[in-house]
Structures are given as structure tokens and as C-alpha cells.
């Protein structure tokens, strides 16, 4: 009998190391090492047809699908090669980590990341940086890493403020005097933006709640109590179902703060299912179904954060980096990711209700027909 322990060692080693060809990159790397880690490397620019990686979350929202298409076409028009990837629907975080590593391997010069979990990518972002790529966080700020270069997004605190204001305006239009009974929903707690939206909205609602003009029927005003796991419609619908049973069997519900359109529609579905009148429900993202719903008078408001402008701005940053210029930023103090303040370019959001729905989407080829 041959010694199987030793054989196992070898079998394990073979399986592990797999079969590889031989070439050392280290020597090549060290020779260019002088400009690999430094900030000077951005100033040098790169080839006009370089590879640009775009890693987006799973296709759970139409926004991400649209963003992916816009990136593919926009980068192509600008003369770059592009690699646009979505995370898989079940193993999102691990998928995105692997996709970013693959982009680094392929030698992408800029990697634009719409994070699935903004706190679980620091290892990959650091590897990208070490390999000489510039990393731009798109829409969601990547946390706890020095290696993040830029952040481009809509001003999300402003989004929250607009939602809070819309909720109050909508309820006043229906019923001139308070007190108004409302429920609060917030987004997924693994998304950095959820808290920003919620805080923005609360900055408007809190004084009203304190004065008693607005009452949260269930008493759930903490972000942890109101969060919606994974931004999933089913989770919001389930929570709304329970709220209706527990709190609103006799009371009327005047308004619901919803952080986005998918959740707003889920909330409306739940209310309709319970046979209640539809309250004032806010939203965000301008999803076609919600635009239809606003035109039909069901959902009260949404936010137009035109994905086209955000993608356009991101591609502009890539072009600047390619030319060796520092990309334009308009906020260098608000967005701290835990270890550094990330230079950001923030775009202005726009609130959309039934009143301004026609003008708001006049330039949007997909949404304009829905408003007619």
C-alpha cells in the first residue's frame, strides 16, 4: 500500500495550484512601480481606447438596467472599450467581488462601481487601486477604504428632504388641517443611501412629529424599525400588511413615506388589498410603472434623478481621467466613507407630482409617452 498521506499532499497541491504557465509579472510590475500607487498617475492619463469596467448590482430595479445600457453605449461612443457587469440575483456580493477582480485582471483603467453592499468591497477596491485603476463609486458610496477616488451621485439628502416635503404637501392638499397619521419606510440597511434619504426626510418631518401635527400611527420612527431588507418589494408589502392589521383596522392612514418607487407600489398594493383608501405615498427613481401610477392619481410623488445625467457625468469623469485632467467635483466635505472624505460630484434631484409630470419627463423618450 503506498503512502496515501503523501499522495494526498500532492493531490491537494495539484488541485489547489491548478495548472499554470510560467511568467513573472513581478519584475514588470516593479519596473513600473514608481507610478503605480501614487496620485500622479491620474494626471498622466491613459489610452483613448482603454478598458473601462462598470460593476452594477443585480437587476432588481429598472434603473440599474437602464444605467447598464447607457454605460455600454456611452462608453462605446466615447471610444472606450467597456465591460459592464451585473451581479447575479442570489449571490450578489460574492459575484460583484469576483467581477471587480476580473476587471482588474483585464487591466481596466477606470472601474465604476454601483455597489451591492457598500461595506463589503474594500478588498477589491484596494486591489484595483494597487493595479493602477481609478475607482469611482456610482450612486452608492463605498465604505471603509482609502482606495476610493471619486463618488458621483444625486444629492441624496436633498432627495429625502424633497420626499418629506412632498408627503406634507400631498396630505395638506387632501385634508387642509392635521393631525395627519403617517407610516415611515426606509431602504435596505446595507445601502449607505438609505440612512441619507431617511435623515433628509426626517429633517422635514421631525418638527411636525414633535409638534403633534404628524403622528406616526405605529410609533415606528427609528430607521431600524422601518428598514426594508434588500430594497425588496415583498418585504415592504409584508411590513405594510402587518401595519394595516395591527394599527389601521379602525384608524385612517393619511400618508406613507416610501424611499423609492418599487416600495411605493408595494405599499399601494398592500393598501388596496386591505380595501383601504390609498394614502399619499412618496417615491423615487421615476420607474415607468410609478409614472403611470402618478398620472392615474394613485402614487403621489416620485423623484426624477435622471439616470442619463448621472451616467453622462460618470463618463465625463472617465474622459477627464483619460486626458490626464482631474475630474470636476462639487463637494469635498460631505461624503465621509469611514476612513476618508471622498471628493464627490452631486447632481440636483427633481420632485415630480401629477402637476409637473408632463414637463418633468418631456425630454425622456421612454417616460414622455406615459404622461400623455
Amino acid at each position, binding site marked *: 500500500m503506498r503512502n496515501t498521506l503523501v499522495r494526498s499532499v500532492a493531490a491537494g497541491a495539484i488541485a489547489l495550484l491548478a495548472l499554470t504557465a510560467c511568467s513573472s509579472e513581478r519584475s514588470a510590475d516593479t519596473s513600473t512601480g514608481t507610478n503605480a500607487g501614487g496620485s500622479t498617475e491620474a494626471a498622466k492619463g491613459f489610452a483613448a481606447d482603454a478598458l473601462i469596467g462598470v460593476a452594477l448590482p443585480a437587476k432588481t430595479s429598472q434603473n440599474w438596467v437602464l444605467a447598464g445600457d447607457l454605460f455600454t453605449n456611452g462608453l462605446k461612443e466615447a471610444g472606450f472599450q467597456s465591460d459592464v457587469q451585473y451581479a447575479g440575483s442570489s449571490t450578489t456580493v460574492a459575484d460583484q467581488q469576483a467581477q471587480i477582480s476580473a476587471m482588474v485582471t483585464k487591466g481596466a483603467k477606470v472601474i465604476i462601481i454601483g455597489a451591492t453592499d457598500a461595506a463589503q468591497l474594500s478588498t477589491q477596491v484596494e486591489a484595483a487601486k494597487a493595479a493602477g485603476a481609478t475607482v469611482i463609486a456610482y450612486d452608492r458610496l463605498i*465604505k471603509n477604504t482609502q482606495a476610493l477616488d471619486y463618488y458621483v451621485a444625486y444629492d441624496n439628502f436633498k432627495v429625502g428632504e424633497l420626499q418629506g416635503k412632498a408627503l406634507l404637501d400631498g396630505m395638506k392638499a387632501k385634508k387642509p388641517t392635521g393631525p395627519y397619521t403617517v407610516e415611515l419606510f426606509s431602504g435596505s440597511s446595507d445601502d449607505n443611501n438609505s440612512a441619507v434619504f431617511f435623515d433628509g426626510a426626517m429633517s422635514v418631518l421631525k418638527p411636525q412629529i414633535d409638534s403633534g401635527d404628524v403622528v406616526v400611527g405605529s410609533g415606528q420612527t427609528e430607521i431600524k424599525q422601518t428598514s426594508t431588507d434588500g430594497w425588496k418589494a415583498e418585504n415592504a408589502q409584508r411590513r405594510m400588511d402587518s401595519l394595516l392589521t395591527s394599527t389601521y383596522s379602525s384608524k385612517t392612514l393619511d400618508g406613507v413615506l416610501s424611499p423609492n418607487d418599487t416600495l411605493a407600489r408595494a405599499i399601494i398594493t398592500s393598501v388596496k388589498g386591505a380595501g383601504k383608501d390609498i394614502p399619499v405615498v412618496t417615491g423615487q427613481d421615476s420607474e415607468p410603472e410609478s409614472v403611470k401610477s402618478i398620472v392615474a392619481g394613485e402614487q403621489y410623488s416620485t423623484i426624477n434623478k435622471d439616470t442619463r445625467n448621472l451616467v453622462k457625468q460618470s463618463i465625463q469623469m472617465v474622459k477627464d481621467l483619460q486626458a490626464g485632467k482631474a475630474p470636476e467635483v462639487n463637494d469635498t466635505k460631505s461624503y465621509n466613507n469611514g476612513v476618508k472624505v471622498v471628493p464627490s460630484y452631486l447632481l440636483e434631484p427633481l420632485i415630480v407630482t401629477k402637476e409637473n409630470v408632463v414637463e418633468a419627463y418631456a425630454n425622456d423618450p421612454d417616460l414622455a409617452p406615459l404622461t400623455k
Partner: protein
Amino acid sequence: MSRVKELQKSLFGGTTSNARQFGMIFTLVAIVLLFQILTNGLTLNSGNLISLVSQYSYILILAIGMLMVIVAGHIDLSVGSIAAFVGIVVAKVMQDYSVPWFLAILIGLAVGVVIGAWQGFWVAYVGVPAFIVTLAGMLLFRGGNQFIGNADTIPVPEGFRTIGAGFLPEIGPNTGYNNLTLLLGLLVGVAVVVREWRARRVRQQMSADVAPMWISAIRVAFPLVVVVFATLQFAGGRVGTSFPISGIILGVLVVIYSFFTRNTAGGRHIYAVGGNSRAAELSGVKLKRVNFLVMMNMAVLAALAGMIFVARSAASGPQDGIGWELDAIAAVFIGGAAVSGGLGTISGSIVGGLVMAVLNNGLQLMGVGSDRVQIIKGLVLLLAVALDVYNKKQGRFSIIESLTRPFRREAPADPAPGTGTDQERGKSPVAG
């Protein structure tokens, strides 16, 4: 016996499981080479190999435990949830109580032991099918993860990240390579040579036929070439990177568990229980204890895998572990284990897992979207097992068939080389 067969036997060791392993490794090599061509050489680039190992080591660690669970005739659906639960517990104790990271790892393993004892108790001593117990565990520990973590993402300190994102340090003279990785490669290379030398000596002592020297030379040279290339590749990556720590943990586990499942009574008992539990019990195997330990072992490995993932991600999140059980189960079945239990090897499962990993990685390098990657992986899983089942029915060379022979009930277990098993596979061509 044909000449081809004779050559095959002397080259791959003559035992059927070696021939089978060759088949699996051949498949892996074919996929690696295919992607190497399709991605213009990116697949075998050092950066990619390093990220491949660190991306999949936790899945392969799960596959080790899952192989033993499946061999014992069970299944474990709770591994992803256990991993996520342990991950959040460990992240939380480090954040809230400032527990040092090495202690946190021990706590994590201890939580794994407790969870494993819980599941093992229901499976072994109450007799609830493992499918149900672990389905319950899947819900239980997923809920536990959200209960403790408030569905929040909790960062972990730098020291802890070593087990998932760490590399061997750069020490010693500047050789242009990572010195410790070179040393590791040397160690593996020496192991390959010593293995062959000892095998020859044992056969001499047993007065058995000793293969000609040139056969031995080939048997040593091929793995050595692989080891040398792999070593240079892993050692020659970007400065600061090398063979990942998580890969070393995996390697050590593979060696220990391979030895355990092949060469110890405890390991063989698992196969006996999976093959025919009544017969095993009648011949004195402590059925309950084996089932208990197999389930417990799985939970401990799941705990380890969870911690490695958390370390690699630098944070524990609410989506950790989702779908891992399926990856691990797929690796085990592609690696040749039987659905009914009793069959399968650790190294087969590792190679099966690597086939999936290389496939995933290669498709990602080609820029194939995750939707299509999932479709392709699903088809590969189905085809790999279907092809083997078909070949077995046709009486041709079959991976599962050749694997099963030493353990089959009608043919008494006798894995010693060159005894009576050859006529059964007389028709089989050289694998691949």
C-alpha cells in the same frame, strides 16, 4: 490486459480512483486551457490565479464538509446560513466587546461546534432527516444573522482580514518573487518526489512489481512541472500579493481530510454508513456517532468558511452565505459523489469545485453577464453528472463507476492495486 491499460496503470497508479482523478483533472486542465485561449492568456495570469484562489477557497472548504455529509447519505442546506450567523457573531464581538481577532476566530469555531451539535443531535439521535433539520437550520440561522446584526453591515478589524484577504509576508532577500511562496512550492515539490520514492520502496518491500524508472520519472515530472509553474506564478504576482492565506488554510484542510477519509477507521465508517447503514451498524459501526460527527464537522467548516468570507469582504453583511450550499453541493456532485451516498472523494470534490470556479472566472473575464453564467453553470452541472450516468449504462469508462468500484457492496472493498478489479473495466480506454 492491453498495453494502453498497462501504461495507464503504471502512470496513474493502477488504482481506479487514481484513474478517475486523472479524468477529473483532465477536465479541469481542458477548461483552464480553453479559457486561457479565449481570454488571451488572462486566466493563468498571476493576479487572476491569486484572486481565483481567494474567491473560491471558502466554497471549497464547504465542499470538503459537504462531501462527507453526502457520502454519509445526508445533505446540508444550512451551511450558508450558519456561515452568515457565525460571521455576524464574530464581527459583533469584535466591534462591541473589542475581542482580539484570534480569540474571535476561536469563538466563531465554538459557535460552529454548538450549532453542529444542535443539528447533529436532531439528525443522529432523534432521527429527523438531515434535509429537514438543515432546512430548519437555514431559516433559523438566517434569522439569527438578521436578529443579531439588525440586517446591518458590520466592519471587521484589519488583523482579522488576514484569514480572508491576507497574503504571505515579503521576507528575506529580494529575489523578484515572494520568498515564502517559493518555499511553499519547494515543500510541495519535495512531497511529490518523496511520495513516489516511498511508493517504490513500499512496493519493493512487498516484493511487488516495481514500475520501470522512466514511468516513475514521468509520474514525478508532470506534477513537478505544474508545481514549479504554479509556484512561480503565485510568487511572481504584484508585490504584496502571494499565495493567499485562505488558500493555505484550504490546502491544509484538504490534506488532513483526505488522509482522514481514506486511511483512518473513522473515515471509512462514513463510507460504510452511506453505503449501507444497516450493514454498517451490524458490523459494529456506531451509526449515531458517525452521523452526529459528520453534521457537526460540516457546521464547524461552515463557520470557518463564513469567517474567511467576512475577512475577505472586510465586513459581515446580511446577504452573506446566500446560495453557498448550492455551490458546495454542485462541487461535490461534479466531483463524482453519488446522490445515494457512500461514494466520493475529497480531492474529487475539490477538483469539481475548481471546475465551477474556473468556469465562473473565465466567463467573467470574457465579460459574460451573471445571468448567462448561471445558465451555463446549471447546464454544466447537469451534463457532467448525466454524461457519467450515461457512460455507466453503456458500460464504457465512467467516472462514477470507476470511483465506486472499491466501495461497492457486491464487490468487497479492496482498494489495493491490481487485484481483481481489472476485468470489470477491461473495455475502458485511457481516460480522456
